[in-house]
């Protein structure tokens, strides 16, 4: 079906390929992808961007973005991105990582990329579990939350406490921009888009490491309808992972997006 150009109000961003995503219905990975693609379109940087895909449900992110892409070992995306950026400093390099990838197995890589102030952008999808492997406990799983590897609910006495990544990384000098947003309703999605744009602008201007943590859903492994999973984010995730601007350096505050 063709739509007359003046009737067209919503289309695939140019930064997307034609490939439909494999995400479950109601999963916010797709929303996060779309926001990144819109930002790449707006900044006109599709032909100078290199994405780094993680291991996790978004492992095939490289199929969806119409940019160069590489696929990292589990957790190592920030190191791979560092290698790329150090030899191609004038390109846009971003990683897209889940919470198992970034906050567990890849903790060393993300902390040091941030501490070095690598001019990278990290989009961090916090869905409080290991989606891809079938919903095991992640470092971000909420206390008491049932997962396939915490069947009685996460017991903080034996399984520890959630890690708040945006807060933690914001203490590092090398970080220019570090914020947390949520994808549970249109207003928050708009704020997330703005943050993603600012993060990429931070990199474009060489203003240091930038990360946007996005509270996300995993209706499949949470055992919820898409609508209830959005409610869960609002009622349980947001209180545990307060949204906010954890670090924005002065030069970045001047950026108007």
């Amino acid at each position: 079906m063709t739509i007359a150009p003046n009737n067209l109000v919503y289309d695939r961003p140019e930064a997307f390929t034609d490939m439909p995503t494999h995400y479950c219905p109601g999963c916010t990975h797709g929303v996060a992808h779309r926001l990144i693609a819109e930002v790449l379109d707006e900044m006109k940087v599709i032909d100078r961007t290199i994405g780094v895909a993680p291991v996790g449900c978004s492992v095939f992110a490289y199929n969806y973005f119409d940019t160069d892409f590489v696929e990292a070992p589990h957790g190592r995306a920030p190191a791979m991105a560092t290698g790329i950026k150090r030899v191609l400093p004038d390109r846009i390099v971003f990683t897209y990582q889940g919470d198992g990838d970034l906050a567990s197995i890849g903790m060393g890589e993300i902390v040091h990329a941030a501490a070095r102030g690598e001019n990278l952008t990290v989009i961090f999808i916090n869905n409080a579990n290991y989606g891809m492997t079938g919903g095991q406990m992640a470092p971000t799983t909420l206390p008491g939350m049932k997962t396939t590897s915490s069947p009685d609910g996460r017991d903080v006495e034996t399984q520890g406490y959630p890690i708040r990544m945006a807060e933690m990384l914001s203490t590092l000098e090398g970080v220019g921009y570090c914020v947390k947003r949520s994808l549970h309703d249109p207003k928050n999605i708009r704020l997330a888009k703005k943050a993603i744009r600012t993060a990429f602008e931070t990199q474009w201007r060489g203003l240091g490491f930038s990360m946007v943590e996005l509270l996300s859903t995993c209706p499949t492994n949470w055992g919820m309808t898409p609508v209830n999973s959005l409610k869960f984010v609002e009622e349980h995730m947001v209180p545990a992972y307060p949204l906010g601007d954890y670090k924005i350096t002065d030069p970045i505050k001047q950026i108007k997006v």
Partner: protein
Amino acid sequence: MSRELWKGNEAIAEAAVRAGLEAYFGYPITPQTEILEYLSRRMPKLGRAFLQAESELGAINMVYGAACTGARVMSSSSSPGVSLMMEGLSYIAGTEVPAVLVNVMRGGPGLGNIAPAQGDYNQAVHGGGHGDYPRIVLAPASVQEAIDLMALSFDLAEKYRMITMLILDGSVGQMMEPAEMPEMRSPNRKKFDWATDGALNRDRRVLSSIYLDPLAEEQTNFRLMQRWKEVMANEVRYKEYFLEDAEIVIVGFGTAGRVSLSAVRAARERGIKVGLLRPVTVSPFPYEVLDRLTGQARTFLVVEMNTGQMLEDVRLAVRGRVPVAFYGRTGGVVPFPDEILDEIQRINTEPVSAEADPRQSWLDRMTAIKA
């Protein structure tokens, strides 16, 4: 260029720079740290990338990322650090991007010690990361050879889109020898048709080691193996010493080969017909030349600084046609030429049984000496 006194590790670093190294990522570990330190001074002055990573995991994945852009990139480490890099090596192999890794081996297993050893032969040549992948492994025995092989390693890695490892032991890394450096090559990045460097005026590219369909993964493994056959046909390198009329043939790589050469010279002075085959590429392994030597030799003697790792490759080539004896020092102990001379003299007077397990006979002799 004239000959100058070079320390092995620094010579390797400078040779890499002159071969057009664009980026180095590493982590300190004895006995290779001078490579990292040298490049920390040299690379930034040339406007090239140097980074001390947070770990060897970080370093090898930085190498992986830079390799995906088509840049000439390397890392270096020593045994425990190289173990940490095995994950990355497997991904690099699966993605078919070129990268160079230097392993200045030390005594192990575990933390072991910092003395020279060759215990990582199997890891480099046969094992390492998961999955089904070949890799090129070069084993220099002197500072000059390390310099020459450093430049070659980048060319081979790029030609075959394959990992090239340089394995040497701490004694080559630490020794000072007169050596000649090659001229500086310009570091012009090649335009590879697979590199992910931003899709400017071309279709986008993806580099990944994922082949979800087992048939596609199988095709990939076939492709890697096909390419490996080319490497085996074209890239075998070795050095022959006194082999024309040799009845006893010593096989040893790196420092073990070098020490053996002194023993061979001493034995020749005593009229013993002994020669040395020193594999320079331990992968691809010089099976063919060993096959040829099997027609001439009465006995082989494999000398290594481990408990007999390359020994198995020699036995595979010799296929029981003549006896193979073994002599090794391990754990960071370097054999003296006299020890090897004793072995040569013993073999010369008492024939080696083809039935005896060479490793067991050696172990029995070694423990008898110690007792």
